[in-house]
């Protein structure tokens, strides 16, 4: 499509430029992206997630500033950036928990906030979002009922999910009796219970040990292979290599976007953390 082509051209331009020339190229990139995004708004709403010139202002503080991105069906899109970059705000807008100050966001073709889309969306907040006085089963059953699942559906999916997160024997334990890592796994299971088409996972691996983080990313890749679209925020740069595409965020804006390999190549760096720093410093110069 024409819009896709224009973005690829821009990225190619940037990729071909030297580090010292990045400043001017970045301006071009930004301008190019804005133009492309205006067209995306009209053309690419069929993408599972589409954000167009989104802004969110909290009493004069711009948490999200002219953010545009899209996530294709069956793609893992990683939104990376330091704390306060605007990742959580962007996800909360996509989940209908916040209203944008300007711009638009679409999930599965519906402009959010739209209650109609909620049953096809899974949201895992930064917090565990579990009832600590309830058992694992009671938590899953409650969220299942909220999503309108039948008892039989809850039972079947609960079994499968507990197997997936390797907690089949913990079904009747209170959340308070589980370790932090186990609680994270149950939180993920609650998010997946109603088999959503799109997943918004806000820092799903914060406070999770490296082994568990690796297994989380294995789940995410399995889900992606099953056709589920995911937007994942993280500030662990190294784990973002599992994403199909990455958006670097800083100060509420997207400062770069591409596949992990593309971003590494463009910045001539070995790690995504270094790549982020390159973009971050360039942005600072601008």
């Amino acid at each position, binding site marked *: 499509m024409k819009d896709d082509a224009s973005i690829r051209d821009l990225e190619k331009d940037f990729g071909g430029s030297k580090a010292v020339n990045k400043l001017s190229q970045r301006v071009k990139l930004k301008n190019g992206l804005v133009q492309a995004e205006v067209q995306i708004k009209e053309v690419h709403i069929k993408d599972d997630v589409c954000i167009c010139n989104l802004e969110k202002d909290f009493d004069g503080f711009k948490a999200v500033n002219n953010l545009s991105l899209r996530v294709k069906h069956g793609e893992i899109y990683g939104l990376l950036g330091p704390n306060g970059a605007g990742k959580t705000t962007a996800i909360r807008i996509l989940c209908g928990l916040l209203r944008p100050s300007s711009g638009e966001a679409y999930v599965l073709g519906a402009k959010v906030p739209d209650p109609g889309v*909620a049953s096809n969306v899974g949201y895992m907040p930064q*917090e*565990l*979002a579990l009832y600590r*006085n309830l058992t694992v089963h009671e938590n899953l059953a*409650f969220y299942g009922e909220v999503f309108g699942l039948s008892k039989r559906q809850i039972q079947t999916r609960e079994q499968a999910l507990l197997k997936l997160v390797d907690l089949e024997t913990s079904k009747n334990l209170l959340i308070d009796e589980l370790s932090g890592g186990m609680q994270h796994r149950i939180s993920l299971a609650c998010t997946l219970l109603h088999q959503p088409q799109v997943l918004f996972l806000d820092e799903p691996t914060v406070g999770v040990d490296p082994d568990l983080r690796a297994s989380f990313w294995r789940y995410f890749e399995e889900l992606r292979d099953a056709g589920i679209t995911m937007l994942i925020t993280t500030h662990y740069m190294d784990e973002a290599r599992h994403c199909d595409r990455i958006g670097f965020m800083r100060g509420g804006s997207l400062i770069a976007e591409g596949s992990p390999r593309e971003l590494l190549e463009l910045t001539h760096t070995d790690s995504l953390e270094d790549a982020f720093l390159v973009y971050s410093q360039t942005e600072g110069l601008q």
Partner: protein
Amino acid sequence: MKASRAFAVTKRVLRDLKNDRRQLALIFIAPLLVISLFGVAFTGNVKDVRVVVVNSDTAVGNSSLSDKIISNFDTSVLNVAYANTEADAVGQVQNSSASAVIVFPSHFTQSVAARASGQTSIPQENTTVQILADKSNPNVSDPIIGAVNSAVAQTIQGLGRQAPVSVDSSNAIYGANAQFIDFFAPGIICIAVWQLTTLLTLISFVGERTSGTLFRLLASPLKESELVAGYAVAFGVIGITQSAVLLSVAVILFNVTIVGDVLLTFGVIALLAIVSEGLGILLSSFARREAQAIQFLPVIVLPAFLLSGVFWPIQAIPTWLRPVSYILPTTYAVEAVRSVILRGWGLDKIYPDVVALLIFAGVFLVLATILLRRRE
């Protein structure tokens, strides 16, 4: 609104309660303790109060009127001691070893007899039993004065004389055998439900916000109205259970008489619980942490405790303060529950209070829903 989703919330709240023993204790043990303490402390009448009698009367023949009066003192109330001089007796009150001095003047018997036979020249003070009481505590001084008055009346009656005017208050329209606990028990039940439901909802909702569960729920198909309704039903059930336990204790331990329909009482209390739940959700918007939520406790408890007619009637509250009483939902709940329990009134008579509670419930629940629905 989908009932099944609201019901899922109700089940969740009740399960949460079932699994949390501390919360269970707070809901049931704390009010039980309160009603028991109040019951024990307030049901007892004033007993064994030490009074000092200064009897300067002289007998006529071999008996004196003062002795007859003293013999008619209710000894369960008055513990009588004697002193020779008024100064000595007053000294005992001043050093807190007695609560009142009862003085019979000299020639009391003769003076009373002379007056009774029509001699008007006898000075009034010669026929007066003087009580010098420590009135700093009316709860003690009033029963002393009552006991002396009663003994005087009983003595005169024993002499075959009738007072020209008599008052008969033995027949009651309501509450024939009511004691003070009958009056305040309905109030305590309402205050317990009000306080605990508001506080628990407030803490639960602050918890929903801080734990992220509220975000997860608001991102799900669950509507805000379903969440509020689910909580309302849960706390209505908890309120009914609480009041059933409290009423049972009041009846079994303190012989509180229930004249009216218990189910109507439960209905009113469930309504109060729903009002409290709405208020709890509203207040939760102003607290970011559970510690901040606790700071609302005095605001929730004190006005309701002092101005809702729990211990003294609204009529005893200064006129300028009464509007505050009338904006407290507990005022209507206490009045309605008390009317059902003590007076045996039905819905046909308590409906103004029920309507007031329904209005409070409607306003609070709608505001709570709007506040949850409002997106920044």
